[in-house]
């Protein structure tokens, strides 16, 4: 992903800042600019998520695409945040620790690097709540 394409969503990626519709109360992460329920009646404002949630479903990626292959095998999951919205993110833990329903919390980690000398992308991964 190019530098500006990543950079423009840095606050959202680093700090789990999504959005909320003040009309119906729905939370959105990844952020949405239009509420699918309220559409033009919706009022979208930024919302900082707590970063806690649980694993809804997961897989262990063993055959990865470049440039993620150096990290394989790694767990990937759909996380339901406590505010009710769902997101996709890697989980940092032993492979056999992964299970549906596992409580997790967000952590700031390196996501991927563009080769040895390219941009390093940071963002949100999850770890089990101990």
């Amino acid at each position, binding site marked *: 992903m190019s530098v500006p394409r990543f950079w423009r969503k840095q606050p959202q990626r680093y700090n789990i800042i999504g959005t909320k519709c003040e009309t119906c109360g729905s939370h959105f992460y*990844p952020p949405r600019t239009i509420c699918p329920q309220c559409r033009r009646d919706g009022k979208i404002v930024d919302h900082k998520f707590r970063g806690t949630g649980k694993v809804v479903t997961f*897989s262990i990626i063993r*055959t990865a695409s470049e440039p993620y292959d150096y*990290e394989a095998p790694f767990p*990937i999951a759909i996380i339901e945040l406590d505010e009710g919205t769902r997101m996709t993110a890697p989980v940092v833990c032993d492979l056999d620790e992964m299970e549906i329903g596992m409580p997790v919390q967000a952590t700031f980690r390196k996501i991927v690097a563009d080769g040895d000398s390219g941009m390093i992308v940071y963002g949100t991964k999850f770890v089990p709540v101990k």
Partner: protein
Amino acid sequence: MREVAVIGVGLTTFGEKWDTSFRQMCVEAGVKALEDANVDGNQIDEMFVGNMSGGRFVLQEHISALIADAVGLASTRHIPSTRTEAACASGGLAFRQAYTSVASGMSDIVIAAGVEKMTDVDGGVTTDALAGAADREWEGIYGVTFPSLYAMIARDYMHRYGLTREQLAQVAVKNHYNGARNPIAQFRKEITIDTVLKSTLVADPIRLMDCSPVTDGAAAVILCPLERAKEFTDSPVQILTSTQATDTIALHDRRDISTLDATVAAGNRAFKMAKLERKDIDLVEVHDCFTIAELCAIEDLGFCEKGKAGIMTEEGETALGGRLPVNPSGGLKACGHPVGATGIKQVCEVVEQLRGEAAGRQVDGAEIGMTHNVGGSGATVVTNILRRVN
């Protein structure tokens, strides 16, 4: 709206076609369809070409003009040609656009094709290009691959409905049995449940033999108004409906991880428009990009209750000779999955079945068939219902 018929179909063989180029494949399928329809190229009014990622796979965009040019209809007749793209449902979109073009009266004789050349790049590029069918900024950025998305569906499904690993494997076994009987199939080889269970893990719980392969291939069909069909062929096939639906691009935003709501929506619209019941369908070609996808498709199209497609498959109901043969072509799993061509190939298979020309894998007495084509993890779905004209 005019009634529309399919009057000709054409397919290349599916596989790793290192000796055949992108445009050659599309020309071959198109010429075969024209010959089958007994139509001259000069009679074609309009063209639609389904293609997912010429830009990534062969560094070629502007597919619409490229193919019109290659078949000799650009410099001579300057026909309108349009490329459609909805990831693995690109072919389905081309078919539906061709259908609406004829149904509306805009064009009379229309060709709908699909093509994908996937083996001119190495595997890492292919995997990454396919990942573009998901949300690049919120799924792809974390290294999500397509097998891992369907693996997350499979995990959720197994957890909730008690599907066994063996039942899932049976989908691949059944589709390889059918593919072994299809002369264009990429894998013409039967396998056992053991073959699937011993294959490499790609993204737990999905193994290599749960996955459709990387494939080169092309397919084409010729459409015309039903009232003119008999001018060209003794065995036209009527298009009863062609429906399309969308859902969220990202899997995590779906209402239910294991249900493709776009399949439910497109299927419900199709049965309503065609005024048919589920039991009226004699065979269905569904989008089994992964084994779990076939089970979801059978359920979400309404052919059985949610959670029961595994048992239905295990008991042979979806096999040739069963209550509802699913993927007699071998499906994406065994016939192969050249992503842009798949939606058209499914129509070709149903047409051959309805004409009684699917030797070796023929569904006896088939009169009504259905196709189901999915883009991404379920963000686009196209379904078609076709009927033999007696």
